[in-house]
């Protein structure tokens, strides 16, 4: 094989997820079924080999739980906001496409930020520039420069939150420096 093998540790989150999906679909979490699921997960991961996801090597549960709760809250807020705008503003709504430069250059970070930002109020990823890790975001109800600034801040804050959860040590150190200065 010409492709670089990734360590089991890096593959583990994928395998755990596959086993979970398997057991959930069978609706059977008995040890036998889990073992068989694990077997299938390993075979699938070996046969259908995907480019490895480069994890940051750390995951902070303490940061992840509040982030998830805030995220759910924002999903609820986003839905009501869109509902309100649809009914109240409708055709008169004004939008903007804003470029936001992210700190991190890792694919996982850019993808995760793009996903989260697409689900929280008023923003949608239109285009990604991977080489400079810039997200082009379509903002709903962006009326002036101030709204553009707050949208940009929102995206950068989301990325900061994700770096605190699962960014690499270097990214975290850079973030700390930026916050301190």
């Amino acid at each position: 094989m010409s492709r670089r093998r990734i360590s089991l540790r890096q593959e583990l989150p994928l395998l755990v997820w596959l086993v979970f999906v398997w057991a959930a679909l069978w609706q059977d979490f008995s040890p036998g079924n889990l073992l068989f699921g694990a077997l299938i997960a390993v075979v699938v991961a070996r046969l259908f080999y995907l480019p490895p996801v480069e994890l940051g090597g750390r995951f902070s549960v303490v940061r992840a739980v509040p982030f998830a709760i805030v995220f759910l809250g924002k999903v609820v807020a986003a839905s009501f906001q869109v509902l309100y705008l649809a009914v109240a503003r409708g055709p008169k709504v004004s939008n903007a496409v804003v470029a936001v430069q992210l700190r991190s250059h890792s694919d996982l970070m850019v993808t995760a930020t793009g996903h989260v930002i697409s689900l929280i109020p008023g923003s949608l990823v239109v285009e990604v520039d991977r080489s400079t890790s810039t997200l082009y975001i379509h903002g709903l109800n962006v009326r002036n420069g101030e709204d553009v600034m707050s949208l940009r801040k929102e995206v950068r804050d989301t990325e900061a939150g994700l770096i605190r959860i699962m960014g690499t040590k270097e990214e975290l150190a850079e973030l700390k420096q930026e916050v301190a200065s």
Partner: protein
Amino acid sequence: MNPEVSGVDTVIDTVSAVFMVVGALMSLGAAVGLLRFPDLMSRMHAATKPQVLGLFLLLAAVGLQLRTWWVWPVLFVAWIFQLLTVPVSAHMVGRAGYRTKHLHRELLTTDELEAVVQKAADKRDADDDEASGPA
């Protein structure tokens, strides 16, 4: 059946009823948004957001009503897949829509992508000219 159990039942029924009504309202909101918003991009907002919450609430109501723990993992997986796929599809549609000019530029207060797309298009045209020139 003792009265305590039926008391819990009432609470669960009420909660799932509220979830279902609000979830349906969210789907209605998505439909209203699709009709009322002026261009493709803002319609994508309506198509992605309220619908994710609506599905969450309806799945939660299903989970509460079935009262068996083993449906929760299935519902969880269903919702997670929704969370993972909705931004991707919205991104692909939005990207295609932007480049095929399915948007009302007069409704945009700022557009920081236009110049970038224009530059890429110019470069591609120049490359095409170069390629076809000598032949």
